């Protein structure tokens, strides 16, 4: 839908019949690319119990640490380069300012798919749950939400969360039937 205060994507200039001609020329003549990618775990991103802050029940709250790694920065640099190449190959002109990838990347948490922190894995020493979401440490605890993700996939995670939950519950039901829980 045509709209916005800069409807010609910055090509607005002057007034009168030429402005109408420009509208015919420039409306719908812009393409934009959003570069999205997967964030993999890094040692600077984790949560822990806060040593000082407690909630109203006196329980320690979670404290988060978070940082982009070189993987994401390089991924963005590659994405920007590819998007520019596509525009150029189509015969277009790149009009966005040239930002270094560290500045082009959105702030952490801006595009919010909160995932991870109790990731699943095949060993107790590098993960919190097994592949059925069952805690390695507490036998009757099953975690069934986005926290078992091992990376932050760039796509919307809800369907995967539902599929993993289904799988975890099937496994839990089987264990219940066998009297294991």
């Amino acid at each position: 839908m045509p709209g916005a205060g800069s409807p010609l994507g910055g090509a607005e200039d002057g007034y009168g019949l030429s402005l109408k001609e420009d509208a015919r020329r420039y409306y719908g003549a812009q393409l934009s690319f959003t570069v999205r990618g997967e964030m993999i775990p890094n040692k600077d991103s984790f949560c822990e119990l806060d040593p000082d802050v407690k909630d109203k029940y006196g329980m320690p709250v979670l404290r988060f640490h978070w940082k982009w790694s070189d993987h994401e920065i390089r991924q963005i640099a590659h994405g920007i380069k590819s998007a520019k190449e596509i525009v150029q190959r189509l015969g277009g002109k790149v009009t966005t300012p040239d930002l270094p990838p560290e500045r082009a990347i959105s702030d952490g948490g801006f595009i919010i798919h909160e995932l991870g922190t109790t990731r699943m894995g095949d060993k107790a020493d590098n993960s919190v749950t097994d592949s059925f979401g069952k805690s390695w440490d507490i036998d009757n605890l099953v975690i069934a939400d986005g926290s078992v993700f091992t990376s932050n996939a760039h796509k919307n995670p809800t369907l995967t969360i539902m599929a993993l939950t289904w799988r975890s519950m099937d496994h839990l039901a089987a264990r219940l039937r066998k009297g294991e829980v």
Partner: protein
Amino acid sequence: MTGEISRRVTLAWVAAASAGAFAMAGCEAAEAQADSAATQASPWPAEPAPLQAPGYGQDPDLNKPVIPWPLTLDPQQREKLRIAADLMLPADAQSPSGGTLQLDAFVDEWVSAPYPQQRADRSLILPGLQWLDAESMGPFGLDFAQASDAQRRAIFDMIAFRGKVKPGYGRPALFFARLRGLMLSGFYSLPEGIADIGYLGNKPSLGLYAGPTKEALAHLNASLAKLGLKTV
């Protein structure tokens, strides 16, 4: 479009125009540059008092829609907007003029709404309309509405063109750019404007998607072949 435009229409318009980002950074840079030079422009009028008006609130009843804020522009302001709309977007063979399409009603709805972007625009556009009178009164002895189109164009020419803003006219140029953006938004979200640019989107398709037409597919394949890519 004839007769008095309904609030409902201007609001639908405002919603359409809001559906996108505003790119003003370039204008602000231009302003800073222009204002470093000697100033000859009429003084910039004071900003209007902050608008006190109710908004929709957190949970409006969408089945019984009401517009809680009143329109605030006076007939003189509306007339100046109509004149500006006609000059910015004059009638030609493909569409009527901005004034004919009552873009003044659109701008009134916009600057009377109690939301942050609209409040910010209000404090630029209301002084701007007042400034047009002062800038016209100086050399011509007439306010903007009484001046001739040639005289009005003489004012616009100092503030309307990128890279050619008269030194000292930075703020008026910013006002002009913002008003032009709103006029364009209003104009090209109306049926007449949409028809003018041949915009085809925003239409629901009924039933199963039948796929592209033969012509569209041929066009796509010709483009892909030209780029050396596999055709579909």
